[in-house]
C-alpha cells in the first residue's frame, strides 16, 4: 500500500512560504461549489453540438443543413463555408511549407481526421442539438489516409494540405559541437534503428468548453472558458476573426485539469463567438468525452530514427546523432513548436557536448497534436534515457554507474549546455542516491532471487528528467525566424481596498495547482499578515488588467513568473503603505516604519500603528488634505519579465528556459514471463524544484505527474487503425490508472534554489516523464534473462512485453554495436 516516505533536508521556516498551508480553493471544491464551465447558465442560451467527420481524409462534396434547421428546438447552425467567409485562416507559427496550411475553425472543403468538426448546431437543449446534428447530411468523397509518419513523404502518398505542397510541415537541423571528432574519439558506436514515443495525453477529467456571450452594443465577446492560455488563444483568434483583442474578454474560474491539453481550443471558441453573434444568444459548448479523445491536443508522437551514439568503453558518452520525426496530426495548432521545445533539454542530464538532431515534422490524418504535460521535452528525455539504458545494456555496464559517470555535476552548476541553455542548479547524483535508497537498491539482488523463485522476473529502471520551466518565447524563432516573439511575462495586481482588504489578481489560469494559496503565502510574508487576510481572486479575467501576452498556466512557470509578479506587486504595495504612513505620521522617514500585524507602525514607538483598514480608507475614501505629491494608489500592478536574450537563430544557440527542476524516479517491476503482465512493486520519486513555497502542493504535483506517467507507460495510447479510426475514443478503451492500479509510492526531495529567480523557485508541474523512462528501463532490465529484448516503444502494455519475451529479436528494438 501507499507508504509515503519523505527524506527531510530543509530547515523549518517561520515564514508562510515553505509551509504546507491548507489550500484556499478546497472549501468550495469539496462542497461542489466550484464553478466549472458546464455549471454556468444564461437566459435563453443555446447548446452547441458539432457534427464531426467519420472519415480520416475526404473531400466534402455537399452539406445539407435544412432538415437540422427545421428540427424542433434548433436555433441555428454554422458551416465551414460561413466560417471561411467570416474569418481568415488561423495564423501559422511554422515557416514554409507549414506556413501555407489553411486552418479554419470548421472544415472547409475537406476533412483531415476522424472527429474533425464540420458543422455546428445550436439548440434549446443538449438533446435537441444532438438530435438535429444527426439530420445534417454531409456527402464525402473518401481519400486514402496517412497514418504512419515514417511514410508520410513517400511517393504516391496522398497530400493532406494541398496548400503546403506535401506532407512535410517543418524541417530543421540542429548541430552543436564536433560530431566527427566525437565519433573519431569513441571506442564504440551504438546504433539504434528506431525508437517510438507514442501518442497519448493527460485526458483531464473535465473536457473543453465555453459559454460565450456577445454584446451587440459594444461588439465585445465574453468567453467564459477553460482555455488555459488565453494569451495564445487571443492572438490566434483576433486576427482570424478580424477583431481587436479588446473585443475578446477571457474569463476562467475553476478548470477541471488542463495539463497543456486545454491550450488549443481556439477553433471551437471561434465557432462559439460566431454563433453568439449570428444567433444573438449565449452559446454553451461542452465537449463530450469522445469528442475530446477524437480531436483535442494529442501529445506529440515522435520517432527517433538511425540513432548513433559515440561512447567510450568505460561508458563515457561523447555525443549522438539522430533523426527525430514528429507526427503532428492533421493541423499545426501549436506546432511546430514541438520541433524546438525539446532543445530546452538538448543533452538531457548528461555532459555529452556533440549532438546532432535532424528534426522533421509531418502531417498525418490523425488528431492535431498540441502541448501535453512534459511537452516535447518528455519525448526527448525519454530518448536520452533510452539511449543510456541501451548503451549500458549493449556494453554490459551498470546503468547507475553510466548515469553517475555522465551526469552533469553539482560542481558544474550553473551549467551551459551545448546549445546555450543554462541549467540553474541541481545535484542529480545525490538525487539518484536518495531514490535508490528509497527502494533499497542494495537489496535488489536478494530480491531478484526471491522473485525468480516465484517464476517471475525482476527489473529495476531509472528515469531521470528535467522539467524546464519559464519559456523564452524567442525559441520560436528557431522554428520561424520571421516570428516576433521573445521573452516571457506574467502580471499580478495587489491592492488595499477601502476596508483594508488585500485583494490579489493574477493573469494565470490555474487548473488545480493552488495558485490562490501560494500567491497568498507570498503576499502574507511581505505584508506581515495572515494568509487568511489575503484574498486572491479565483481564475483569470482579461478585464482585470492583470494580464499580458504570455499570461496563462502552462509550461511549468507559475512558481517563477506568477509568484514573481505577485512578489513585485506586493513589494510595491508595501512601499506605498509606508509612504502613506510617513505622511500620516507627519513625515516619519519610511526607513523608520515597518509592516506588522496587519498594519504599519513606527519601529521606535510601535503604538503608533496604522492598520491596513485605515490605509485603505484614507486613500480610497478620505483623502482630502493629503500632500499633493503623495504618489500612492494602494493599487499596484507588476509585470515580471525574466532576464532573456533573443537566441542566435543561425547557431540555434541561447537560453531557452530560465529554470530546470529535476526528477529522478526508480521503478521496480515484476514481470510474469508466461503472460507479459507486470506489476510495479516498488517506486520512488525524488524531486528538486528549488525553493518550495507549499511543499504539500509540490508533492501533489509530483504524485499526479507520476501517476500520469505510469498510465502512459503501461496502457494509455491514442491508437489508430490504418484507415485513421481512433481505437481508443473513451475511458473504456483508453485505460487511465484507477485506484487499484497504483503502486506504493515513496517520495523524497532535495531543494536546490534557483539562483536566477526572485524567490529561488522553479516551475515544476510537468516532471512526470521520468515514470515512463523508469518503467521502460525496468521492463528491459527484467527481460535480460529472457532474450534481452530492447524496449523501443514508450508504451509497453502486457501483450508487447509478452511479444518481446517470445521473440526478442523481432519484437524488440534493433541495436548494433560497432567499433568506431
Amino acid at each position, binding site marked *: 500500500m*501507499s507508504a509515503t516516505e519523505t527524506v527531510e533536508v530543509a530547515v523549518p521556516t517561520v515564514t508562510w512560504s515553505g509551509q504546507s498551508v491548507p489550500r484556499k480553493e478546497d472549501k468550495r*471544491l469539496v*462542497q461542489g461549489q466550484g464553478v*466549472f464551465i*458546464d455549471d454556468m447558465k444564461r437566459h435563453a442560451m443555446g447548446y452547441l453540438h458539432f457534427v464531426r467527420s467519420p472519415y480520416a481524409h475526404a473531400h466534402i462534396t455537399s452539406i445539407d443543413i435544412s432538415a437540422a434547421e427545421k428540427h424542433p428546438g434548433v436555433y441555428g447552425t454554422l458551416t465551414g463555408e460561413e466560417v471561411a467567409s467570416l474569418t481568415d485562416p488561423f495564423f501559422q507559427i511554422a515557416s514554409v511549407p507549414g506556413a501555407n496550411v489553411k486552418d479554419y475553425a470548421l472544415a472547409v472543403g475537406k476533412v483531415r481526421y476522424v472527429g474533425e468538426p464540420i458543422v455546428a448546431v445550436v439548440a434549446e437543449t443538449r438533446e435537441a442539438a444532438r438530435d438535429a446534428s444527426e439530420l445534417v447530411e454531409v456527402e464525402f468523397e473518401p481519400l486514402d489516409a496517412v497514418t504512419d509518419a515514417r511514410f508520410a513523404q513517400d511517393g504516391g502518398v496522398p497530400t493532406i494540405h494541398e496548400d503546403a505542397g506535401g506532407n512535410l510541415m517543418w524541417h530543421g537541423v540542429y548541430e552543436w559541437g564536433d560530431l566527427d571528432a566525437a565519433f573519431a574519439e569513441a571506442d564504440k558506436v551504438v546504433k539504434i534503428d528506431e525508437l517510438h514515443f507514442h501518442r497519448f495525453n493527460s485526458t483531464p477529467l473535465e473536457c473543453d468548453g465555453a459559454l460565450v456571450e456577445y454584446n451587440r452594443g459594444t461588439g465585445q465577446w465574453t468567453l467564459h472558458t477553460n482555455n488555459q492560455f488565453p494569451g495564445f488563444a487571443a492572438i490566434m483568434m483576433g486576427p482570424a476573426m478580424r477583431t481587436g483583442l479588446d473585443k475578446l474578454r477571457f474569463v476562467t474560474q475553476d478548470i477541471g485539469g488542463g495539463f497543456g491539453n486545454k491550450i488549443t481550443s481556439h477553433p471551437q471558441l471561434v465557432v462559439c463567438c460566431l454563433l453568439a453573434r449570428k444567433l444573438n444568444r449565449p452559446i454553451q459548448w461542452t465537449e463530450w468525452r*469522445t469528442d475530446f479523445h477524437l480531436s483535442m491536443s494529442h501529445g506529440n508522437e515522435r520517432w527517433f530514427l538511425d540513432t548513433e551514439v559515440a561512447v567510450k568503453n568505460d561508458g563515457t558518452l561523447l555525443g549522438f546523432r539522430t533523426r527525430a520525426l514528429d507526427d503532428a496530426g492533421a493541423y499545426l495548432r501549436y506546432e511546430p513548436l514541438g520541433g524546438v521545445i525539446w532543445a530546452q533539454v538538448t543533452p538531457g542530464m548528461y555532459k555529452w557536448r556533440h549532438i546532432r538532431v535532424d528534426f522533421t515534422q509531418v502531417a498525418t490524418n490523425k488528431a492535431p497534436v498540441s502541448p501535453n504535460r512534459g511537452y516535447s521535452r518528455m519525448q526527448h528525455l525519454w530518448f536520452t534515457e533510452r539511449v543510456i539504458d541501451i548503451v549500458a545494456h549493449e556494453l554490459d555496464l551498470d546503468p547507475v554507474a553510466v548515469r553517475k559517470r555522465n551526469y552533469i555535476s553539482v560542481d558544474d552548476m550553473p551549467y551551459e549546455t551545448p546549445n546555450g541553455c543554462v541549467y540553474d542548479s541541481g545535484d542529480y547524483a545525490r538525487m539518484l542516491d536518495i531514490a535508490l535508497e528509497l527502494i533499497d537498491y542494495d537489496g535488489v539482488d536478494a530480491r531478484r532471487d526471491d522473485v525468480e523463485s516465484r517464476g517471475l522476473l525482476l527489473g529495476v529502471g531509472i528515469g531521470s528528467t528535467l522539467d524546464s520551466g519559464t519559456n523564452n518565447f524567442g525559441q520560436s524563432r528557431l522554428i520561424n525566424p520571421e516570428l516576433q516573439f521573445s521573452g516571457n511575462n506574467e502580471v499580478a495586481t495587489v491592492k488595499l481596498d477601502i476596508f483594508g482588504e488585500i485583494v490579489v489578481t493574477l493573469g494565470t489560469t490555474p487548473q488545480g495547482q493552488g495558485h490562490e494559496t501560494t500567491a497568498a503565502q507570498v503576499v502574507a510574508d511581505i505584508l506581515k499578515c495572515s494568509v487568511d487576510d489575503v484574498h486572491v481572486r479565483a481564475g483569470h479575467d482579461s478585464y482585470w488588467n492583470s494580464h499580458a501576452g504570455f499570461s496563462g498556466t502552462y509550461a511549468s512557470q507559475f512558481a517563477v513568473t506568477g509568484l514573481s509578479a505577485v512578489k513585485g506587486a506586493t513589494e510595491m504595495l508595501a512601499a506605498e503603505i509606508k509612504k502613506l504612513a510617513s505622511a500620516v505620521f507627519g513625515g516619519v522617514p519610511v526607513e523608520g516604519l515597518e509592516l506588522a500585524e496587519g498594519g504599519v507602525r513606527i519601529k521606535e514607538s510601535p503604538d503608533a500603528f496604522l492598520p491596513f483598514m485605515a490605509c485603505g480608507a484614507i486613500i480610497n475614501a478620505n483623502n482630502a488634505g493629503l500632500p499633493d505629491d503623495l504618489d500612492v494608489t494602494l493599487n499596484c500592478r507588476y509585470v515580471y519579465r525574466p532576464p532573456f536574450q533573443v537566441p542566435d537563430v543561425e547557431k540555434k544557440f541561447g537560453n531557452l528556459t530560465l529554470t530546470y527542476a529535476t526528477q529522478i524516479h526508480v521503478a521496480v517491476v515484476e514481470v510474469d514471463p508466461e503472460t507479459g503482465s507486470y506489476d510495479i512493486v516498488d517506486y520512488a520519486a525524488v524531486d528538486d524544484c528549488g525553493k518550495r513555497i507549499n511543499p504539500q502542493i509540490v508533492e501533489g504535483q509530483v504524485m499526479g505527474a507520476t501517476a500520469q506517467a505510469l498510465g502512459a507507460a503501461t496502457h494509455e495510447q491514442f491508437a489508430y487503425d490504418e484507415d485513421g479510426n481512433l481505437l481508443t475514443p473513451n*475511458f473504456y478503451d483508453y485505460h487511465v490508472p484507477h485506484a487499484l492500479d*497504483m503502486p506504493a509510492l515513496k517520495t523524497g526531495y532535495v531543494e536546490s534554489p534557483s539562483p536566477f529567480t526572485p524567490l529561488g523557485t522553479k516551475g515544476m508541474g510537468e516532471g512526470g516523464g521520468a515514470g515512463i523512462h523508469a518503467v521502460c528501463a525496468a521492463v528491459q532490465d527484467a527481460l535480460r534473462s529472457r532474450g534481452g529484448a530492447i524496449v523501443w516503444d514508450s508504451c509497453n502494455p502486457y501483450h508487447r512485453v509478452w511479444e518481446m519475451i517470445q521473440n526478442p529479436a523481432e519484437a524488440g528494438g534493433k541495436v548494433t554495436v560497432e567499433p568506431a
Partner: protein
Amino acid sequence: MAVSTAKTITVTINGESYEREVEARKLLIHFLRDDLDLTGSHIGCDTGNCGACSVIVDGVLVKSCMMLAVQADGATVETVEGLAEGEQLSKLQQAFSDAHALQCGYCTPGMLMSATALLRANPHPSREEIRKALQGNICRCTGYWNIFEAVKAASE
C-alpha cells in the same frame, strides 16, 4: 406529431422535495445539473467509467449518468451539496483538504460520495478496501495516494 414521453417525477434531494416534468430520456445527472442547477456532481466521461457524477440513491451509490431521471421518481437522492452541515464540512470533506486529496476538484464530488458510501457500510475500512471502493472513480490530478490517506484519516 411526436408523442411526448415526458413524465412528472418527485425526487427528494438532500432533504428537499422537487417535482418536475422530465423527458423519459433525460439522465439523472442532467436532471440534477441542468434542471435543478445542482452542479456539484460532474460529468467526465459519458460512458460510466469516471464516477464524477456519483450520487447516493436510496442509500445505494449510483453513477447518475447511468440512470434515467424517471427511474429516480420517488427516490431519496444525496449529492455532494448535502454533505456539509451548513458551514461545517463533513469529516471526510475536511480530511480531503487536510491531506491535499484534491487538485482541480473536478472528480472530488464523486470521490466524496463513493467514500461516504464506503464509510457508512464500513466505518473502518482497510487500505485495500478503500482502494477497491474508489476504483470506479477516476482522478487525473492526484494519483489517488492522498485520496487514500484522506479516507483513512476520516475513518479514524
